[in-house]
């Protein structure tokens, strides 16, 4: 299978790609991760101790002076659910 490299942003000046990772808070149960871990074991990946699944967003901004700050705002408003999730932001 093809692996991917982080791709630069195609556009020109003022363009920025920000990656927002959203994960369940560690104390919140992740049934999906548990089911995947169980599947790993059935498939013979005995060394897998735990799996947690989250979301990854690649957001392209255009003409923002502080795209990281904007992305953080966006994460709080829309991309993450503050009751059960937490997020981290970085340049893509």
């Amino acid at each position, binding site marked *: 299978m093809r692996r991917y490299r982080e791709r630069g942003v195609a556009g020109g000046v003022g363009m920025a790609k920000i990656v927002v990772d959203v994960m369940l*808070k560690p104390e*919140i*149960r992740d049934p999906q991760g548990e089911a995947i871990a169980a599947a790993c074991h059935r498939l013979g990946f005995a060394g897998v101790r735990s799996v947690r699944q989250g979301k990854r967003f690649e957001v392209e901004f255009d003409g923002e002076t502080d795209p990281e700050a904007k992305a953080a705002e966006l994460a709080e408003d829309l991309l993450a659910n503050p009751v*059960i999730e937490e997020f981290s932001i970085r340049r893509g």
Partner: protein
Amino acid sequence: MTADSVAEAEVTPEREQPYAALGLTNAEYALIISQLGRRPTESELAIYSVMWSEHCSYKSSRKHLRQFGEKAPPSAALLAGIGQNAGVVDIGQGYAVTFKIESHNHPSYVEPFQGAATGVGGIVRDILAMGARPVAILDSLRFGPADAPDTRRVLPGVVAGISFYGNCLGLPNIGGELAFDPCYAGNPLVNALCVGVMRHGDLQVAAADGPGNQVILLGSRTGPDGIGGASVLASATFGAPSESGNGHLAKRPSVQVGDPFMEKLLVECCLELYAAELIEGIQDLGAAGIACATAELAAGGEGGMRVTLDDVPLRDPSLTPAEILMSESQERMMAVVTPASVEAFLKVCRKWDVEATVIGEVTGDGTLTMTWRGRTVVSIPPRTAADGPVYQRPMARPADLDSLQAAAPDGLDRPKDGPALRATLLALLGSAEEADKSWVTAQYDHYVRGSTVLAMPEDGGLLRVDEQTQLGIALATDGNGRYCRLDPSHGTQLALGEAYRNVAMTGATPVAVTNCLNFGSPEDPQVMWQLAEAVRGLADGCAALGIPVTGGNVSLYNQTGDNAIHPTPVIGVLGVHDDVRRRLAAGFTAGGAQVVLLGATREEFGGSAWAHVVHQHLGGRPPVPDLYAERTLATLMAAAASDGLLASAHDLSTGGLAIALAESCLRGARGCRVSVAGDPFTALFSESAARAVVSVTPGREDEFAALCASHGVPATPLGETGGDTLTVEAAFEVPLDELRQAWESTLPALFD
């Protein structure tokens, strides 16, 4: 880490305990001490605090709820009644049905998706615990104003949560409600009903009997879910987290996460265990988790129980014994199994990938004993936990009720001519409350299991129970907070009447009632009065209808500050259908069929949809409930359905005749032409109870008229189906397309 033990409690009577932070009063704490003859251990305190909570003990409502039993009509159909996980009703042919409604209001406000999802999961386990296969769900939802920003957060999340959990579990969703009112803004109501079917002999009991029998916990692992209360306990004992370095203590989430896949496995696993007769007793784990399941199983049996808490499979090894007891981790059950059956039991669990662990044993000593790391941390008579205190709380008629009832809607501006009546119809039809609910219901699977005969938007859901005999069951839930605010007793009877009528509209015969009592704080005497009135109304209403209350649930403290929700009892009615092929549905499907109004119309606008939508007005008296008329109407419908006299049937409720006609036209994609006698506004929009609009099988008009006469049901021919307009002669005409546009566009515009 060592835990507070019984031995330690005996020698440290003076130790301060955080009982107040756990919600126990001074008197309750003193009662625990007097019952135990010593201070409780930390783990015991955890058990009492959750078992004596309002939610588990019904301490404010129990005194009133007794009326359901006392006033109940004698019923041979009741195989198990109030006090069980859910009531069980004999529906004939060897089948029994169990059903119950439960609330998950507060969790759904905090985290709409997971709150609503786990609400479905909880009620399904209640039904499963009775020995039945869960076969369908209904959901009854109330939110703040439809256009409020917070409703846009809460409603889509709640609906997605119910859709996620119910669909993934493979249960058809066959009905429910959706209503909006500012009183629910900070206190949405999310009530879910589950119904299950079994054979007569399949009934399971929630009791731990037979010394030596093994206690097995099965399903998900126990984690730190929903134990905010226990953190209080832990931090009070170990010092504030920051000081002690016990970082985990601060991170006990109050949000429970649902795993419908695990629940599906649990359902299939338990049904296989029942079929193989490997179970002596079983209890679901809901609120108060292991504390509640052990206490109730032990209290339900003769002897006692010994539990080794170290054997409880944990998701987080740092849990304290008190936390293990209070954890509300979802998708768990507790079973009592004879030693000889344990191996076979565990084998079935392995087949379904369900983790199952022996954690204790039934004893003969009458005590619930628990050990952890070699120390005895719990030693109590189980009944003291299972039967909490009972309160007779002060009650007072709300101070504003007289003025509210005096502010009748008589003075409000009414539509005076045809165009104004037409505009009123479109305004009501396009209001969030009356509008098409497909935005919600299209997210629910109602086909799965292949037994759904009727589902949303029909009046009642209808399921086929037996493919050979065509035996079926019908269900509906109803409530009306506005009516109940104006008169809790009559309002509750109106809700009962409506659910009963909805079931009757399918052609089924109503047989049993469940209820979810959603109210504000019982510590407010005015709320207590509302609760008492509602219960009185329901008990009397059921006696009048001749059907018993078989179970229910009470949800209190639905209020923000001093603002309580409208008193909102939600009533579920179960009916039996002898032949589902003869079911009736709301749509005008036959052309040229006579349209007949059944029942009597009075000028009744207090709490009406018209007053609410057009004038934002709430005042006066609600319509008069007429349960005798409901009963004769239902008998008539069953007879007419089985004789094949009707082409359609739809009950009248909020919005009156105008809304019912519009819905029958839209549902059947066929218009009608009618004329009404007397004041057209009253004829079209009054909300008098015990009414329906039907279309008669062409050629059978006289037979039907005779049947109505013999049942003493007023029947008024209004006109005929046909065409592509809804026409009220001498008043207005609306093309169906225009009606449809008004009806269908509202919810998508609000929530897409």
